[in-house]
């Protein structure tokens, strides 16, 4: 399905919003203004943007430890995100979750997840609820190549296939599980080969091409809405930064040449080049979007820095829902 200019603008907006947010988070992390772990999404923006543009607002997302991108793509509030990453009171989770548990249930983003493979069964549960309620909402499980080696993932995707649940499984294959190359820990080369084992269709798309991801997501979501069950999309992509933190080059587990080769296929640069060449979006307009988003991110950083640390009195709140119905 050929994307309209509005859709192209949306893809670009969401990719760039993720990129600028993540770059700013990385700078704060380096400046010791961000506690804990930071798993940056930079490099993979085309996947979150491509899928989320194809989704409806009522469609749900389950995410991973590398989950900022999915929330930004779902329309997350950058102020609340930045404050949460800094552990501040005005963050999405009031400073109780941080990077790995960031969520916005009002946007149907069911949370990042600190456990590899932990989010996929939850997406399947959301898919079950959609089928149960008889609506045509779809849940999308984002997960990495690494999580497909975990039992929970197999259980969840098999269950979704067996019960024909409206779930779209999106594998972001960035070729590394933490610091180990995928082919050392998996005897198949394409994660999508697993789809056949669950009896569902699976396709590979170029995860550095937002339009390619979008095209496949449109089809996968439509199948789910028609009641035809789950679809598996493997997006071949790459993370520019380390598993954790901001170091890019000079690592033992991957060569600098490899990193540079992937950066040469950068999803945002390539997209901007293509749409301006094709005369679909002007360079001026792209630049204006960048200026707007830079301001939004800058404001988010300021918001986060100005937000107070959580009150100690909140330490023990929210362990339980106090009043049940």
């Amino acid at each position, binding site marked *: 399905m050929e994307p309209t200019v509005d859709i192209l603008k949306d893809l670009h907006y969401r990719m760039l919003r993720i990129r600028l947010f993540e770059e700013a988070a990385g700078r704060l992390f380096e400046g010791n203004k961000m506690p804990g772990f930071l798993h940056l999404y930079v490099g993979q923006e085309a996947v979150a943007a491509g899928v989320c543009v194809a989704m409806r607002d009522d469609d749900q997302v389950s995410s991973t430890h590398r989950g900022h991108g999915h929330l930004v793509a779902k329309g997350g509030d950058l102020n609340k995100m930045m404050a949460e990453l800094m552990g501040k009171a005005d963050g999405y989770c009031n400073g109780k979750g941080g990077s790995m548990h960031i969520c916005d249930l009002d946007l149907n983003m069911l949370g990042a997840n600190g456990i590899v493979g932990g989010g996929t069964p939850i997406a399947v549960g959301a898919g079950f609820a959609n089928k149960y309620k008889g609506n045509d909402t779809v849940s999308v499980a984002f997960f990495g190549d690494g999580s497909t080696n975990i039992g929970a993932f197999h259980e969840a995707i098999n269950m979704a296939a067996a019960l024909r649940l409206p779930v779209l499984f999106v594998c972001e294959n960035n070729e590394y599980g933490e610091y180990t190359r995928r082919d050392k820990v998996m005897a198949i080369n394409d994660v999508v080969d697993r789809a*056949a084992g669950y009896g569902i*269709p699976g*396709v590979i*798309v170029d995860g550095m091409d937002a339009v390619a991801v979008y095209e496949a997501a449109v089809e996968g979501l439509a199948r789910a809405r028609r009641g035809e069950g789950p*679809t598996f999309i493997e997006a071949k992509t790459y993370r520019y930064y380390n598993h954790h933190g901001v170091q890019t080059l000079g690592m033992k587990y991957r060569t600098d040449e490899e990193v540079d080769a992937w950066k040469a296929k950068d999803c945002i640069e390539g997209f901007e080049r293509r749409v301006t060449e*094709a005369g679909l979006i002007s360079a001026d307009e792209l630049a204006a979007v960048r200026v707007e988003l830079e301001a939004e991110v800058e404001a988010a950083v300021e918001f986060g820095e100005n937000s107070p640390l959580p009150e100690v009195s909140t330490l023990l709140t929210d362990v339980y829902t106090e009043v049940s119905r």
Partner: protein
Amino acid sequence: MTATVGIIANPLAGKDIRRLVAEASPTSDMAKVGIVRRAIIGAAEGGAERVLLADDRRGLGARAVDGLEPANGAEIVVLDEPILDSGKNSEQAARRCRDEGAGAVIVLGGDGTHRDVVKGWADVALVALSTGTNNVFPRHLEATVAGHGAGLVASGQVALGDVASRAKRLVVDVEDGDADLALVDVALVSDTFTASRAVWDPATLRELVACIAEPGTVGLSAVAAAVAPTGRFERGGVHVRFGSPSETSSAAGIRVPIAPGLYGDVPVAGWHRLRAGDEVAVSGPGSLSFDGERDVALREGQGASIRVGADGPHVIDVERALRLMNTKRSDL
């Protein structure tokens, strides 16, 4: 000269979006590894003393030779080229096979993979094996006997000239771009983006040039075949123009399988046959698809010319090679 057979397999073949938008089946790595292993065994049996195997980003080649000890002590060499992205990898492997003096190359993939190989080595002698989705150029053939046929040719037991025919090719020149080629068809489609590459929506078709237009195929070749059938070894080709039924009331809707299991009404506005060398000029905006895959985006007004050339690769007819060999044996 060492009797050498090259094997080039596309690890990505059989995994694209047509498994979603049509009813195409997936081809797993395990299936491909099995095919490569059988091709190696067949090639050695057919007389190959050395088998060159292209490796790829996904290590298909390396895994295919794991523990394999073919007959006649044939040597298996996994090419030590730098590993490139899929299409470029096949192209590079073809050049290397040429430089290493391969007498025949077994290609595993769809139309796109065969195109990549021919881009690397224009007059390659190849055995075309289908593991892709829309397969017009390669045929379905058991890998064991395909390898055997390649071994017979590479070892000189049968002469290439006796068992191979020269295929056609489509020569494409893109304004401000690189020269390119296709083995079956080139189409101008309205998509601005190459994105998921496959072409499956008839509404996006603008123009089509095909040098193989055979009934019994799936994809754009079937579209051309519906108006002007042209065999793979017949001369010339066909040029088809499309219009949307709304704007061209005279457009004839032709119903063909545009992808495996997916029929579409294709609005043909006109067509004519092409002789070898006739040029068709098209211009953007849109994308050019080569053998069914969007590959080159065209700007507004950016032109491209397409012509049918008679100088495609040598395609080995495996059955003919085997029959010839059997005849020789019975002469003894």
